[in-house]
């Protein structure tokens, strides 16, 4: 179903990002082949100029990818109106096998582009550009991801036929179904909530310890904790938090909270969670390049900033996620 403004906008954005990525990759190949830090040849000066171009292009690409991520979910929500049986974005995304993979690739893609920009920001803090080769190798590795993203999205849009029957979110995420959604239905709500609260507490404690005294292993633990917490949060948002937002016990959907009916609550929730997980996971990643020429101080400062930022965002995220739950309990509901 390409003849639809949402499909067209998504395809157009993907095309733009692919073009930007290709131009950046051209620079990457030249840098990997000809980079000589000590030289003052014409080519080296040109290359030093070109790395500005490629980093700007990736930064633009990241911004565009974040917009397409939101656009993709909203488009799925729009598509559900023409797919028989789909009542919200969940049904539309499950309408063919490419919907969910496309969404996941987009979501994790945002992390990878973010990591690249972090590498670049660390790199330009030093006069010697010590990370140039690693950075451009990583850029070349990002390219297949962009292609995968665009192809999955195109396959998804091409596969949408307005007459196939899909399940609506009330069925897919409801308790009665098993099969493909085992991860989401396998645990009890109480157990999930306890794990969620415990993870928040552990992350707070580890983060606090890290700020007092820095240990490399603790930083690794912190990042691993964030990755675990990110996945857990997505599950908890789907199975527990969302139904409190909708005030409907059987409506469990991670996408409808993005809609105006629920005051765009989801944007706040994901807007706190995704950057928090990014900063948390990037702490040891930055530590990996500490040994490179002259980066020690910069990396230290970044790591402390990242831990602080992730803790602040964690507080905001927990506040937002418990807001509807507590409101329900205080107004007389049973837990």
């Amino acid at each position, binding site marked *: 179903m390409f003849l639809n403004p949402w499909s067209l906008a998504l395809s157009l*954005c993907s095309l733009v990002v692919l073009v930007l990525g290709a131009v950046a990759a051209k620079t990457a190949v030249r840098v990997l082949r000809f980079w000589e830090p000590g030289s003052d040849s014409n080519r080296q000066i040109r290359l030093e100029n070109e790395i500005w171009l490629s980093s700007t292009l990736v930064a633009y690409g990241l911004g565009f990818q974040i917009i397409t991520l939101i656009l993709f979910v909203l488009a799925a929500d729009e598509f559900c109106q023409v797919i028989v049986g789909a009542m919200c974005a969940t049904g539309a995304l499950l309408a063919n096998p490419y919907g969910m993979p496309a969404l996941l690739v987009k979501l994790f893609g945002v992390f990878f582009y973010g990591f690249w920009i972090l590498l670049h920001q660390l790199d330009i803090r030093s006069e010697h550009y010590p990370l140039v080769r690693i950075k451009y190798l990583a850029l070349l590795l990002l390219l297949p991801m962009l292609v995968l993203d665009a192809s999955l999205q195109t396959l998804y849009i091409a596969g949408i036929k307005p007459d196939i029957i899909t399940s609506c979110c009330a069925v897919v995420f409801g308790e009665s179904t098993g099969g493909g959604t085992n991860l989401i239905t396998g645990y009890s709500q109480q157990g999930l909530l306890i794990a969620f609260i415990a993870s928040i507490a552990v992350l707070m404690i580890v983060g606090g310890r890290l700020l007092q005294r820095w240990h490399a292993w603790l930083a690794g633990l912190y990042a691993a904790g964030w990755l675990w917490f990110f996945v857990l949060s997505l599950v908890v948002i789907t199975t527990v938090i969302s139904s409190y937002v909708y005030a409907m016990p059987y409506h469990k959907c991670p996408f409808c909270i993005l809609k105006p009916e629920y005051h765009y609550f989801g944007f706040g929730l994901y807007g706190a969670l995704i950057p928090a997980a990014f900063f948390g996971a990037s702490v040891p990643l930055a530590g990996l390049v500490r040994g490179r020429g002259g980066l020690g101080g910069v990396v230290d400062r970044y790591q402390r900033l990242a831990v602080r930022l992730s803790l602040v965002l964690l507080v905001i995220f927990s506040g937002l996620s418990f807001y509807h739950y507590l409101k329900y309990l205080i107004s007389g509901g049973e837990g």
Partner: protein
Amino acid sequence: MAQSNLEKQLNILDYALSSLWRHRLKSLSVLLVFAAVIFLLASFQMVTQALSDKAKQVLTHTPEITLQKMSAGRQEAIPLAYRDKLAGIFGIRRVVPRIWGYYFDEVRLANSTVMGMAVDEMPEGNRLDAALAKGAMPGPDEQGRVVVGHSITKALDLAGRTTFSLFRPDLSLKPFEVSGEFSRDTDILTNDLIVMNLADARDLFSIPAGLVTDLCVYVANPKEIDTIAKKISETLPSVRVLTRPQIQKTYQVVFGWRSGFGSICLLSALAAFVILAWDKASGLSPEERREIAILKVLGWETSDILAVRFWESVIVSGLACLVGMTAAYIHVVYCAAALFRPVLMGWSVLRPDLHLLPRMAVGDILLIFAFTVIPYLAATVIPAWRSATVPADSALGG
């Protein structure tokens, strides 16, 4: 550190604003063309959305299932006796017969819609009076009384009288008396409508007794619509069963398709604009080269100049979005989308005055943004980098 960084960005923003002002003719031309492109795309999007909203709103009052008899692929009159065959299906609240057709007025060359209904049998029939500006719906026994829409009153010039006549197929005249007029709020449905009772409609169209054009099935529980529709089509295989959700989805697909088609046509305008933006951004005058060289000598870095260019693009596209979307909103709401209405609606001649009210959610704004601003930003980034890497010595050397 964060404080000084913010201050730096604010200063760069300040510089970008003054730079735009210095080249105001160039900036204004790009801004106007950009706003025009956004205006076209946004109007299209808003009209589509308002129309599909309107369709949805209209369809909520239609019966859940409509039955039409098909013969040789065409619709024909359906026997009233079919009602008895549906009696055994649970969940059906009521089956109401209806005659509806078009009456072509050869004098005024206009088509009007004639609907014969058994108002007293419809589940919410008594509420139809609420849709009237004056008068009352004709009762089942009141022969020859009709309720008409606004443009019928106008076309038949009924201002001072309440009677008029229509021709039967054999050209004999059938007299009618107006017993009420629909209010203008329901114009999209009732503008060209003449409502009468079933017997009058049958008489006007000379439809044999025991036949109607379609049967409306009212279903008590909306979740059972599909099941009941399936059962009906099993009981009456020669009948076309139309369900309300099906019609709704079809409208969505058609409007989405038309809007997508329109967007593809407008893509060429967008492409032309992107080329213009690229061209405007790459043609650096000697003064601009000098300016960048001086900034570099003063200690600006490449990234700072890139930031200036980025802010310039953001300001231009932000302003263009604001102007373009506001203009589109005015176009759709106050001018009833005069430019695009023929493309998105049908091509009938008697057409109600439409009052379209698009609702702009964040998603729709983001869609227009993705369609226009992203290509623009992408088109200006490489020229921006080219201008940012002008070597200081070569520009000042001359």
